[in-house]
């Protein structure tokens, strides 16, 4: 892996410019094809029968009447999906989540699926399937699930991470511990200690495009899948594994994706769509309804978190502790662990301990949601930081600056940081005019920090130069927010050609080697890195071709500003050859010119953000309006600043929705009461102000241009920033997210009382 830190200070020609995205015209004219926009000849409509129970034993599924209905071509239950996972428990959980096996584990769990000639017939067939359930006791709350009398979901879950190993199964899957130092000693040293508990309700990624796919399996065992996904190669592996297909014989083509935010890193209906197609011998299209998206695709965890932080009178934190309980839905996850890892990552702490409790409940299987698990932990820790600052009579900002992690700090999750951006974002907050703007009555200002790891992963990229000198860049990471523009900029930069000369595509699984998903803020980071090396390889080929054209040794050829130049006096009559010249000659100099890169660009560089937020509260109704919002985040080098800003703004908006109104509401019956956009309230345009951004460029020494991942961190601080602003506006400390009008009014009433 090449890695040249000198690049971090280089001058760029096109990197950093705000070019138009290559897929723009298709997306403003309705031409772009998303998951549900593809049709295959002879396709059937696939629909799912879902459990109306939160927890039930499935005693019998009778499909006979449905099968007899004219136009029904296939019906699938778990009997059609034999367990081929061979001891891989993660795969087994995915299989069981896609189709219940003997038990319905949550409201919305798939019980059976039908493929029929049209939607009407498929719907009728669902009505004709008779399922006999035996309702079982259920639990949907994370704290309730840990009580001794709670119904236990799985008899195979024995808590790991504790000594001695438990003798009975429970809903607590795993306890993970992070930290260093001695917190008991640290708290003993503290002059002031604040301890508080928090709850956050479950939220959904809320992408506007429901999951959709067209699956087609041939009698010879080969198959094709058109699907909206954040990772078509991963979908291919998972689906092939579950169905016993050869990975290479399943071609997955990723559609344009209508938002994912982590929710499209997991398979939901896709393996079943393939199984339906295999059984019916026809293509099958499955499009989830919005209600299904909410009930049966992965939301983020709901949580319950205790935080305790102690400090000396001078503001030095002496010890920090958190216990974080996250539910992963009906299957074990790593969500509490991620919460524990990220909780104190912003600070330089001598004594710190975070315990993550991963819990199962009767809710849909949790999926990653943008910096998964970090926002809830940040809400608890950053709220407590403000409380502690208040007790110390320090400004919350100064308190954070005093304790901020820096290069050389041991992170609370283990490693020692290299150059990082938390300090600079806090200094930028201090200087920002937003901090000095006047506030009116019932208004308050808050700030909070956030952290996310970012990561790289397996990447495979092709760069092909056509004989006219135009360049095709084929990458395997899904473009969720404009990465084709950024990657084209990188190719143009390396080759020294105009941006417009490059055309970026997302290759299907048949055209490239494996690529990990677009997650962990890695799309532009990883494929960008691979693009750089692919372009450099193509440059080497072009130098050789130029040498051939000139009939001189290749050592005498250099590549400068998009041209091959011959060096040395003896070649001074040789006129520089442009990329287009070399490309035009390529048929006779050795054939097509290309560059490739297959690599694992790990090391996307951790990222930090500090947000400032002003809110106004109506004290009579508890309604909160965000009236000003500023995001300050480290981006390493911003390849396409407009799209970096877009990531900052989008994450902040999702965080604002989470903070104020979004929540899964379960009834006593364990059923989800608000599976629609009417009552699952994501922010609308009139709810938000303009969201100001400030991009800091603290280079990542592990990327040739200094790029860091930027996509996720922006969702981490808003919950706490708004909580802190509310506290400053009204004098009430909100400890339950969402901070909805009824909760705020109740808190205000208690304050008065």
């Amino acid at each position, binding site marked *: 892996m090449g890695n040249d830190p000198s690049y971090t200070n280089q001058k760029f020609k096109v990197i950093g410019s705000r070019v138009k995205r290559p897929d723009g015209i298709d997306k403003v004219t309705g031409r772009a094809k998303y998951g549900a926009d593809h049709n295959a000849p002879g396709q059937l409509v696939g629909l799912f029968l879902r459990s109306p129970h939160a927890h039930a034993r499935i005693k019998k599924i009778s499909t006979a009447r449905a099968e007899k209905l004219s136009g029904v071509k296939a019906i699938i239950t778990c009997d059609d999906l034999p367990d081929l996972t061979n001891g891989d428990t993660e795969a087994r959980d995915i299989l069981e989540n896609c189709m219940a096996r003997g038990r319905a584990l949550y409201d919305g769990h798939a019980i059976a699926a039908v493929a029929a000639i049209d939607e009407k017939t498929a719907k009728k067939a669902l009505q004709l399937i008779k399922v006999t359930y035996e309702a079982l006791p259920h639990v949907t709350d994370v704290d309730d699930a840990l009580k001794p009398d709670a119904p236990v979901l799985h008899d195979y879950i024995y808590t790991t991470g504790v000594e001695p190993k438990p003798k009975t199964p429970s809903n607590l899957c795993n306890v993970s511990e992070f930290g260093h130092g001695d917190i008991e000693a640290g708290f003993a040293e503290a002059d002031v200690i604040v301890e508080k508990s928090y709850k956050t309700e479950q939220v959904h990624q809320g992408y506007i495009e429901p999951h959709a796919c067209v699956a087609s399996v041939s009698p010879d065992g080969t198959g094709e899948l058109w699907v909206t996904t954040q990772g078509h190669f991963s979908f291919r592996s998972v689906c092939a594994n579950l169905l016993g297909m050869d990975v290479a014989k399943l071609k997955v083509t990723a559609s344009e994706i209508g938002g994912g935010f982590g929710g499209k890193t997991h398979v939901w209906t896709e393996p079943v769509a393939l199984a339906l197609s295999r059984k019916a011998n026809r293509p099958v299209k499955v499009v989830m309804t919005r209600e299904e998206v909410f009930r049966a695709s992965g939301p983020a965890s709901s949580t319950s978190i205790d935080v305790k932080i102690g400090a000396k009178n001078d503001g030095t934190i002496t010890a920090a502790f958190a216990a974080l309980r996250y539910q992963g839905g009906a299957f074990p996850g790593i969500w509490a662990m991620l919460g524990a*890892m990220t909780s104190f990552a912003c600070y330089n702490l001598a004594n710190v301990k975070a315990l993550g409790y991963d819990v199962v409940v009767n809710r849909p299987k949790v999926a990653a949601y943008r910096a998964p698990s970090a926002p809830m932990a940040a809400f608890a820790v950053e709220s407590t930081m403000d409380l502690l600052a208040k007790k110390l009579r320090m400004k919350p900002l100064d308190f954070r600056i005093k304790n901020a992690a820096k290069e050389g700090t041991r992170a609370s999750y283990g*490693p020692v940081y290299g150059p990082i951006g938390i300090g600079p974002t806090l200094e930028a907050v201090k200087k920002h005019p937003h901090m000095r703007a006047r506030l009116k009555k019932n208004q308050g200002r808050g700030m909070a920090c956030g952290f996310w790891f970012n990561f790289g992963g397996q990447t495979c990229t092709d760069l092909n130069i056509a004989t006219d000198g135009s360049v095709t860049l084929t990458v395997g990471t899904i473009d969720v927010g404009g990465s084709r523009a950024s990657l084209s900029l990188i190719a143009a930069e390396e080759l020294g050609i105009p941006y417009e000369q490059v055309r970026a595509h997302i290759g299907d699984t048949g055209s490239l080697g494996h690529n990990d998903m677009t997650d962990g803020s*890695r799309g532009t980071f990883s494929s960008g890195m691979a693009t750089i090396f692919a372009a450099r390889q193509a440059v080497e080929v072009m130098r050789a071709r130029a040498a051939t054209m000139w009939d001189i040794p290749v050592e005498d050829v250099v590549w400068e500003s998009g041209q091959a130049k011959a060096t040395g006096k003896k070649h001074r009559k040789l006129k520089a050859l442009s990329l287009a010249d070399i490309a035009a000659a390529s048929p006779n100099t050795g054939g097509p010119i290309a560059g490739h890169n297959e690599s694992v660009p790990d090391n996307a560089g951790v990222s930090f953000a500090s947000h400032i937020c002003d809110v106004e509260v109506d004290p009579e109704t508890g309604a909160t309006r965000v009236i000003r919002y500023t995001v300050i985040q480290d981006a390493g080098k911003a390849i396409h600043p407009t799209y970096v800003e877009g990531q900052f703004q989008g994450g902040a908006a999702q965080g604002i929705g989470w903070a104020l109104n979004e929540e899964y509401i379960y009834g006593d019956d364990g059923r989800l009461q608000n599976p629609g956009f009417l009552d699952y309230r994501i922010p609308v345009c009139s709810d938000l102000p303009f969201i100001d951004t400030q991009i800091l460029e603290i280079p990542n020494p592990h990327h040739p241009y200094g790029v860091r991942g930027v996509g996720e961190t922006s969702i981490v601080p808003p919950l706490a920033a708004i909580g802190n602003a509310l506290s400053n506006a009204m004098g009430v400390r909100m400890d339950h997210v969402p901070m909805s009008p009824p909760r705020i009014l109740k808190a205000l009433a208690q304050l008065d009382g």
Partner: protein
Amino acid sequence: MEIEASTIRQLLMVLVEQYPRMQGHLDEGVAIAVEGEIYRDNWDRVIPPGSEVFLIPRIQGG
């Protein structure tokens, strides 16, 4: 603990040799932090002499 290894791969091999129970953790998925930077897949990463190496769980993103 101190281990002699020049790459992440070597390190993991030595670890499993000395502590067979590590295999379970490796199967569940790990990431390796070398001097503060996290590696999930790049096991060819050279570990400079005297480096501190941290094994952390393999993480997921959104």
